[in-house]
């Protein structure tokens, strides 16, 4: 069998390692970024400011899930899925309402006063600090698990000759949720009356107003969607790794990068941007020596393969989204999907 022969000469161990470390990890982190970036990009499109507390909204959503976990610890066992995932829709609803409340309390008064966008951004930073203070006050600074004892963290190992391809249950759920959310959002924005109204406001708020579209409704819907998706992203990320109150801050820069790369105001762009940033990160910190080592016998003597050959040392991972961001801002400020930058 030729296939088997081909498989035999391929360094399967290393390739699977690559798949685990780059492809799967990139998809996972990219999906989290995407879920955050969709909210950021919607808020930017409709309200025209960069929403800094978005990462904290994700964390807050995960904490809502945690609290629900304490209240209904048996929910997961009944369905056979992680409890936090089963309770996630409730957490999404709560966070969505919370986001609307945030807007009412802090952003709407500023909007009504007609302040400049930069003041909105600064207000949002104030909100971010408040949320971080509160989160750490109530949750401490330690890490937590989003699992109850009855949950089993299923790990799927797919043997591919040699090493196994490893995917965990929360990763699958995260990926599935992202796809469902994106498709649903796409249908909502292109088919529903409210979704079209949101696009209209993003396109031209003044004309939307004279067409009789209620800006208040659109703004409220925007916050509902952004809040719900943030909660989903936060909960799923916390399921995959752990729940930390300061999670958000490490994630907001890549999320902004994803939103801007995808083109501000472009939900599909945010998905692509999220995956692009996620893959860039995993590719950049990947140790390429692993893939080169099998080639050792075929390479001339004088070429040494260093023990570690990564584009960027892991400690500098934060640099990757930043460079993507700056590069896009300079060379193609409308994003790869042509968003709206000005106004």
């Amino acid at each position, binding site marked *: 069998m030729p296939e088997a022969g081909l498989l035999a000469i391929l360094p399967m161990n290393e390739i699977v390692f690559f798949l685990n470390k780059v492809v799967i990890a990139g998809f996972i982190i990219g999906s989290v970024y995407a879920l955050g970036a969709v909210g950021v990009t919607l808020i930017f499109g409709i309200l025209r400011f960069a929403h800094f507390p978005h990462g904290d909204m994700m964390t807050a959503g995960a904490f809502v899930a945690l609290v629900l976990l304490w209240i209904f610890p048996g929910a997961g066992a009944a369905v056979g899925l992680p409890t936090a995932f089963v309770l996630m829709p409730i957490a999404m609803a709560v966070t969505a309402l919370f986001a609307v409340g945030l807007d009412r309390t802090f952003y709407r008064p500023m909007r009504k006063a007609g302040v400049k966008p930069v003041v909105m951004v600064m207000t949002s930073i104030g909100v971010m600090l408040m949320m971080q203070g509160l989160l750490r006050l109530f949750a401490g600074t330690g890490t937590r698990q989003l699992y109850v004892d009855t949950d089993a963290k299923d790990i799927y190992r797919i043997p591919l000759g040699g090493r196994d391809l490893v995917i965990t249950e929360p990763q699958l759920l995260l990926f599935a949720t992202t796809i469902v959310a994106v498709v649903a959002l796409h249908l909502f924005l292109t088919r529903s*009356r409210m979704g*079209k*109204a949101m*696009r*209209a406001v993003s*396109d*031209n708020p*003044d*004309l*939307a*107003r*004279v*067409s*009789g*579209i*209620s800006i208040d409704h659109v703004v409220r819907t925007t916050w509902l969607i952004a809040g719900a998706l943030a909660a989903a992203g936060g909960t799923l990320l916390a399921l995959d790794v752990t729940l930390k109150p300061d999670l958000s801050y490490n994630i907001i820069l890549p999320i902004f990068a994803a939103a801007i790369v995808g083109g501000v105001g472009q939900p599909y762009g945010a998905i692509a941007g999220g995956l692009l940033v996620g893959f860039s990160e995993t590719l950049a910190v990947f140790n390429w020596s692993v893939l080169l080592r099998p080639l050792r016998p075929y390479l001339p003597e004088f070429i040494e393969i260093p023990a570690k050959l990564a584009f960027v040392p892991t400690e500098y991972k934060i640099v990757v989204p930043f460079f993507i961001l700056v590069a896009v801002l300079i060379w193609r400020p409308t994003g790869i999907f042509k968003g709206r930058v000005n106004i």
Partner: protein
Amino acid sequence: MPLLEMTNIHGGYGGANILNGVSIAIDADQIGVIVGPNGAGKSTTLKALFGLLKVGEGSVVFDGRTVTNMAPEKLVLEGLSYVPQEFNVFPTMSVEENLEMGAYVRRDGFRHLIDQVYGFFPPLKDKRRQPAGELSGGQRQMVAIGRALMTEPRLLLLDEPTAGLSPRYMGEIFDRIIAVNKAGVGILMVEQNARQALALAHRGFVLAGGQNRFTGTGAELLADPDVAKSFLGGGADHA
């Protein structure tokens, strides 16, 4: 009783008044045209009428109801519709979606209205799936007017519908406006192309310095040498 009656309107942005007593009255099914030099308050009058600008003094009565300073989204329900001069389409949305947005306030079916708009503006039908931002200026203007027609307004407000259009398109847009009017929609428009617009107007209003300078039928104003003077100056004979 006139369909629309604006009486002695004063208003402006912030402190400075731009309108210093504008009065406009037109009947249902009429075309009213507002002309005048730049800065005379023509567009401002439309904005004040449509609730986009605070009216400080004076009253707006539409179909017997006082609607002074009513919010635009409410005025749409009253039967008014407004087409701004610039930025008057949703550029990333398709032509048909633009029309749907015009019908946003309607809860009933509006399919027949979309067909009616395609009837007024046949070129749009072929472009229904195309983003409005990719259309030519004249077609964009058609989308803008079509969007405003989707609420089945009794009165359509147009702010310089032919600005920036080539003469060929200008004539076409004017033809369409007449057709819309013949279908029973009152029109109040601001026009820079004064002569052409006055020629099709039932009522004409010449504004200057935020006040009515001349008022009359379109034909009267066209024949008035003083009106001509305020446009080309010096009373040139160009009739």
